[in-house]
């Protein structure tokens, strides 16, 4: 337990951030003909097949060292976009996001290539996180062992396309968790593994936090959030609906969802 009187060190400061991104393709019906396109050009109306999504609408909060923060909200509420904004992968259109070091997002589709073996993907993932080739090589076995993909035969030398979705997700989590991050952002990765792997990954998150990092966790599983985070933020349509101790926020969220 930290001394509450001691000054807490912020690691992520989000100051009235707005995130807007563009979606190409998927035109609305009835706008697909060449004449409709020409009409749009002549009348200078907005292109129907490029739509802007205002995913985050003015969010402010401060995250401190040693915290694990759960992000909850219905589908499309902006949770993943918020993580990307914190990681600097999708810059804020207005407002600002400040962070200590380089926050690192444990995403669902990282560098991993389906035609390459698991081992080579691990190597590539480590290099993408900025490790030196020597460090990466030394980590390969540890990561493969942690992911447990070799428990059912020598899968680490097989192409990733032969993996089940659970195995691939475990490998991705293991790669990201291999490096110590000041700020680690996790996007629903824990929900994919089996019960044994989930226990192991929760332990790994606790270890990472013990190294004085900050962890953000997006999950639809209440129990995962409850087990790992003591603070939670509830997002709905890009704005914060509640921010506080996990129990209170989850209760409010549950009432909202059951309506």
């Amino acid at each position, binding site marked *: 337990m930290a001394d509450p009187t001691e000054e807490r060190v912020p690691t992520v*400061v989000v100051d009235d951030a707005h995130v807007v991104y563009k979606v190409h393709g998927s035109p609305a019906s009835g706008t697909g003909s060449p004449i409709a396109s020409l009409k749009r050009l002549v009348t200078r109306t907005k292109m129907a097949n490029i739509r802007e999504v205002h995913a985050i609408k003015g969010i402010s909060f401060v995250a401190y060292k*040693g915290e694990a923060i759960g992000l909850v909200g219905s589908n499309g509420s902006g949770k993943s976009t918020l993580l990307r904004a*914190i990681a600097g992968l999708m810059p804020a259109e207005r407002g600002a996001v400040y962070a*200590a070091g380089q926050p*690192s997002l444990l995403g669902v589709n*990282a560098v991993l290539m389906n035609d390459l073996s698991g081992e080579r993907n691990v190597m590539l993932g480590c290099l993408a996180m*900025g490790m030196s080739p020597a460090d990466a090589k030394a980590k390969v076995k540890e990561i493969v062992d942690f992911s447990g993909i070799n428990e059912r035969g020598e899968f680490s030398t097989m192409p990733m396309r032969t993996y089940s979705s659970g195995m691939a997700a475990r490998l991705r989590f293991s790669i990201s968790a291999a490096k110590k991050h000041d700020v680690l952002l996790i996007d629903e990765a824990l929900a994919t593994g089996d019960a044994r792997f989930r226990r192991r990954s929760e332990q790994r998150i606790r270890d990472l936090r013990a190294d004085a990092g900050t962890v953000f966790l997006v999950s639809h599983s209440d129990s995962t959030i409850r087990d790992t985070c003591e603070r939670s933020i509830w997002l709905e349509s890009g704005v914060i609906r509640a921010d506080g101790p996990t129990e209170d926020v989850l209760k409010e969220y549950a009432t909202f969802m059951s309506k």
Partner: protein
Amino acid sequence: MPQTAVADSGTGIPLKELAARHGLHSAAALPSLPAYFREIWAYRHFITAYSAARITSSFGQTRLGTLWQVMTPILNAAVYYLIFGVLLNTKGGDVSNFIAYLCTGVFLFGFTQTVTQAGISSIHGNLGLIRALHFPRAALPISILLIELRNMTASMTVLFIIVLATGEPLTVEWLLVPLILACLATFNCGLALFGARLGSKLTDIRQLVPFFIRVWMYGSAVLYPVQRFTDHLHGWKLWLIEANPMLVYIELMRHSLMENVKLASPVSQLWIEAGVWAALMFSVGIVYFWRGEKGYGRG
């Protein structure tokens, strides 16, 4: 575990000041150009590993695997031999060894063509990767260049064999080949960087590229002797053709590999143009790309 109170900073300090006080920096701040170069250098191992992985995975489902790297240029050359050597029996005129002359142009131009095409979609086609991982975005167009450079090495080997087999002597001037390739690769690197940002903003540009490439190819005297231009063009039209960077690189390569090749401009002028084009295109490409660095995740 630390107790967490409610979210606000509790101290009443403006958030911007709080961030500055604790040395946090904005994730969206653009690094300086030298810092960007250092960042790219720090990620060099990732860039090489990524290009190697892309090559392996692109041949991953084929039986012959990376053997295709060599097979593709050989087949290309065979097609041109069939059409121009056997069917049209192109001989004499301005060029004595037409097959070698043609293959030099086709292989060199093919290098630029694939880099341009792949470079334009290198950002747009990798949005998933860009939104998942932090790395200098220039790594993507640069790895495109490395992939094509490796394919080019295979093509050059085939080209050497063709040139020697068609009766050209091995001369000291062959030593200039790596230098020409280095200039061309630098030029193409700038082109890939420039195209990558352009293609990420204007997705329509991809539809126009094939037309642009075709005009460029016909203007680079790839399929016919350069005298077709120099014999009857004057003034700004001739100047435009002679300044074409691809024509410069192709002419230099032909001059180094073959005897009795008539050039459109003197060799010394070609060398100056080759260097200037490489430096110019690379600087324009890297600066233009770097200025967009933080916005690529937006799509």
